[in-house]
């Protein structure tokens, strides 16, 4: 009985903390959406109050002031092509590293793992110099091509593919299947969880990235949503602040929708990252 009572108390405390925490996490998002439905003057005078009258001025304003559909298209082009290229190249390399014992494999893989520990800051300046010299600044390939070489993604997929039984691959080889058939028909379907992890993390990283576009996409017609927001924020006069909130809401909605649809995969993606270590 005593054990049970102390447990009751514990549960009450636990749920209280968890519910307060949930409100603290949700409130900023509520603040954002709430203000996107008010007028600028109302935001200025009472930022926390509910709108006295729901206004879509922010949303229409954003479409007038800023070509949101173009920004959305640019963001999509970048995120989709980066995700596709990254996942395909990583899966190909990971398969070879996991299942084809070609001479030199362990040396290349070991070297790769070593470079994985190098902090990204080291690549910032020289990569820019390289991209600048080959004249890619201002073009999408400046962002798409260099980001296709994530060592970490290969590592993640390879760890998963190592777990696929060798017998499956060997049996297919004996049946006369070529390496491409084995890769497409056996390995890829079985490695789907790992591929999903990599695709989700890559898509999210690219969608949320503002720094790459800031460095390389200097022309407004190439801007992405994130860069558009960053540049737009400084130019909006106070009485139009509803536009900023409308834009932040518009940017956040797609990724949150994807998250709600496949949240198990999202959460697993992050957990996988740590478990593979």
């Amino acid at each position, binding site marked *: 009985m005593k*054990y049970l009572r102390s447990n009751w108390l514990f549960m009450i405390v636990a749920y209280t903390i*968890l519910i307060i925490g949930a409100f603290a996490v949700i409130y*900023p998002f509520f603040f954002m959406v709430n203000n996107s439905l008010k007028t600028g003057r109302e935001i200025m005078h009472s930022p926390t109050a509910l709108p006295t009258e729901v206004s879509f001025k922010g949303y229409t304003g954003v479409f007038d002031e800023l070509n949101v559909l173009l920004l959305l298209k640019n963001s999509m082009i970048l995120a989709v092509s980066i995700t596709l290229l990254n996942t395909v190249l990583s899966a190909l390399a990971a398969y070879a590293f996991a299942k084809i014992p070609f001479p030199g494999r362990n040396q290349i893989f070991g070297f790769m793992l070593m470079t994985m520990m190098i*902090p990204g800051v080291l690549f910032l*300046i020289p990569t820019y110099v390289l991209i600048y010299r080959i004249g890619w600044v201002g073009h999408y390939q400046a962002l798409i*091509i260099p980001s296709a*070489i994530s060592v970490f993604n290969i590592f993640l997929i390879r760890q998963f593919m190592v777990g696929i039984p060798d017998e499956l691959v060997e049996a297919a080889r004996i049946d006369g299947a070529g390496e491409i058939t084995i890769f497409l028909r056996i390995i890829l379907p079985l490695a789907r969880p790992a591929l999903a992890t990599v695709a989700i993390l890559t898509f999210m990283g690219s969608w949320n990235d503002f720094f790459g576009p800031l460095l390389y996409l200097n022309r407004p017609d190439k801007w992405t949503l994130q860069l558009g927001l*960053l540049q737009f924020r400084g130019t909006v006069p106070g009485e139009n602040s509803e536009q900023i909130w409308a834009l932040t809401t518009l940017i956040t909605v797609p990724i949150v929708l994807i998250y709600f649809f496949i949240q198990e995969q999202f959460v697993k993606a992050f957990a996988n990252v*740590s478990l593979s270590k």
Partner: protein
Amino acid sequence: MATNALARLPDRPAPIPLWKRIARHGWGYIFVSPWVLLYLVFGIYPLVLSFFLTFFNYSFVTPDERTFVGIGNWIRGLEDPLYWKAIYNIAINQSVFIILKNGLGLLIAALLFRIKYGGRIFRTIYFLPVITSTVVLMTIGDNLASPGGPIQKVLIDAHLLDGPLFWKADQTLPMIIIALINTWKWFGISMIILLAGMYSIDKRLYEVAAVDGANEWQMFWKITLPLLRPQLFFLLVVDIINGLQMFGEVFTIGFSVYGGVNNQALTPVLYLYAQAFDRSNVGYASTLGLMLAFLIAALTVFQFKFFPAEDE
């Protein structure tokens, strides 16, 4: 006789010549080649270039007038008060951030681990900031924390604050407030990773402890926490590597590339960015990057040596 035969069984097969193995596993090279080619150009070459650039004065404006300065950039970096100011700032920022983020993640994970209902809903909510972009979160955070914003209003009404606080102009507050906003953004990661760790702990340990009369508190300190050491180690390593490179947050919350008039929010990578793209000191910026990378490497090695993931 039988034992003799067995002993001779594991005879080594004749080694297959290298060219034959290369030919047989040729597909391996085809599968890795697209990646390897790109990696040589965009991974290895920049790495070599970054070492090369540190010995030169190089500018984007006049790329042909490259001058050799030897270790001049390194001496300049070591003597640059702004760089050390940036290191000091990031040290404060990351101390606050790493402790709060992982502490909060641990607390929430421990609670989620023990409750029966609603765990999934809480987990979904707590993870939301992780998937939201830095620009969006910093826009929100900036408005919530601003003088006249809701947080300061609550604090003033509760008499915890005398009047509006213009924290961006303060010497230390910007780094601490950015750490708080970042804690809100990232604690979900710690929560997920630690929760996964807790689920991998053998349930019988808790049953035995309960029979022995241990309470929740003792179970947490004596069983859960020690067994989470690999996860905590992983989080700390990744946090230090990523955290010391933090700069986008400062930039997106509205500070200049020099971290404000008194450099109160300057971080090492932000300073490197300013040197490269505002002053066009590319060689010097490259050197600052290397200096930071060495510092990160030293801290990581230190961690592996003195706080390893497993006890020896």
